[in-house]
């Protein structure tokens, strides 16, 4: 899709959601569904002095979690894709643990690492890293042998193979996996932020709910969604920049 078409699509989707929301709010006229206008006014009122800290801590957790998952997952996936032996050792482990709903491990992680930051990061990493490992590994495996041969005949070493072939060839898939991981990370984050912290969008939304402040609650949901959307766009731009050869 062209970048223009993409933007138009996003704008169209946004408009549609607002119209539907407005319609439902007008039809039902109940306090648990305020109008979008009221929510946006509320966001403008409370963002600077009430929400900002929560946005910053949530964003920090997501970015840290994703960077750790990429930093560990991509190299491991690359090595597994390149060296058959490593793949034989790690693949069964990855496949065995892949379908386990990692969120169910939250109590164990919390018992081991406490209720603080470490547990929250570990949960994000634990949940997104498998997707990243498998995608990186498959991306390397799908590179045609011919491409490697032409570099081999030039006497290229291992590092040159990685730099000239493996990294550029799999960057697109890694970015796609990152985008998926971001979606998952935002959900996991919400869940983990409802325990053991007073900072983060998850906390903010649940707290507003407890206080029966629906305007604040919706403001939190909208801001969290917008945060996810912005992260998506960043990955999109990176993809456009690095993968224009496709």
């Amino acid at each position, binding site marked *: 899709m062209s970048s223009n078409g993409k933007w138009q699509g996003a704008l169209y989707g946004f408009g549609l959601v607002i119209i539907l929301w407005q319609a439902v709010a007008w039809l039902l006229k109940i306090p648990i569904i305020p109008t979008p206008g009221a929510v946006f006014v509320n966001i403008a009122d409370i963002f600077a002095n009430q929400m900002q800290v929560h946005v910053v801590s949530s964003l920090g957790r997501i970015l840290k979690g994703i960077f750790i998952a990429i930093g560990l997952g991509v190299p491991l996936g690359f090595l597994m894709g390149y060296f058959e032996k490593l793949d034989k050792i790690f693949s069964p482990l990855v496949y065995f643990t892949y379908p386990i709903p990692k969120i169910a491990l939250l109590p164990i992680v919390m018992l081991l690492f406490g209720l603080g930051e470490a547990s929250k990061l570990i949960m994000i990493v634990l949940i997104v890293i498998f997707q990243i490992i498998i995608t990186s590994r498959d991306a390397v495996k799908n590179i045609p042998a011919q*491409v490697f041969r032409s*570099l081999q005949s*030039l006497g290229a*070493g291992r590092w040159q193979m990685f730099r000239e072939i493996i990294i*550029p060839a799999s*960057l697109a898939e890694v970015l796609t996996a990152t985008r998926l991981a971001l979606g998952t990370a935002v959900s996991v984050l919400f869940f983990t932020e409802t325990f053991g912290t007073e900072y983060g969008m998850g906390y903010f939304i649940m707290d507003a709910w407890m206080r029966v402040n629906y305007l604040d609650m919706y403001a939190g949901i909208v801001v969290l969604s917008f945060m996810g959307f912005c992260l998506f766009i960043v990955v999109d731009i990176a993809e456009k920049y690095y993968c224009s050869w496709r």
Partner: protein
Amino acid sequence: MIEIKDLTVKYLRQDDFVLALERINIEIPAGQIYTFIGPSGCGKSTLLYVLSGIIKDYTGRVLINSQPVDPKKQRIGMIMQNYGLMPWRNVYQNVVLGTKIKDGQRRLDEYGQYILEQLGIDHLLDRYPKELSGGQQQRVAIARSFILKPDLLLMDEPFSALDAISREEMQELFLDTWKQHNVTTAFITHSVDEALYLGSKIVVLSPAPGTILEVIDNPCFKMEDMRLQDDYYDMSARIRKVLDKGR
């Protein structure tokens, strides 16, 4: 000069093996271009993989300028059937890839510029391979190998994916470029016509496992209007006969 003595190559599989080449003996003198012709599956690509150091597991002796094959030491230009370009690099980056890996030289020198002009791709430098026609991609691959100033040029059916018209055009362009540099070349083909047009000698291989049936001197090499000469027809008939007999 390339010396191949008693070269036998097997591909190992789980329990058994495939014999790809059997007791190949041939010498290609420096500055000569030999064409290798044989039916599909007879081990032509395998031979080039040995010469380029991709396959290291073989019996027999293979020397390039009296040295064992080592792509780290020798300068080997390899051109494959599907061009072997990096889809994620543009034409310029693809063309300098050889010298970048060999010498750490990422810039095109005057000679490189000249080769690009000669091959008619100097205006395509910022295109990606997918934005080029098959013939243009092949020119990029040829430019890359020539710019490398190789000791040895290996070409694996480089023109077989092209349509008939661009194929003859590329053959002519390649031969013109080659004549100015006289790189020792092994050129694989399955076309009798191409073997005659490009080879000073023609090596005819048998069906799998590949053995050398005959090495034929080619009077048609560098002949003007080759395809209109009687020699061309006589030689075609002769090569076809050798190929048939080996079947």
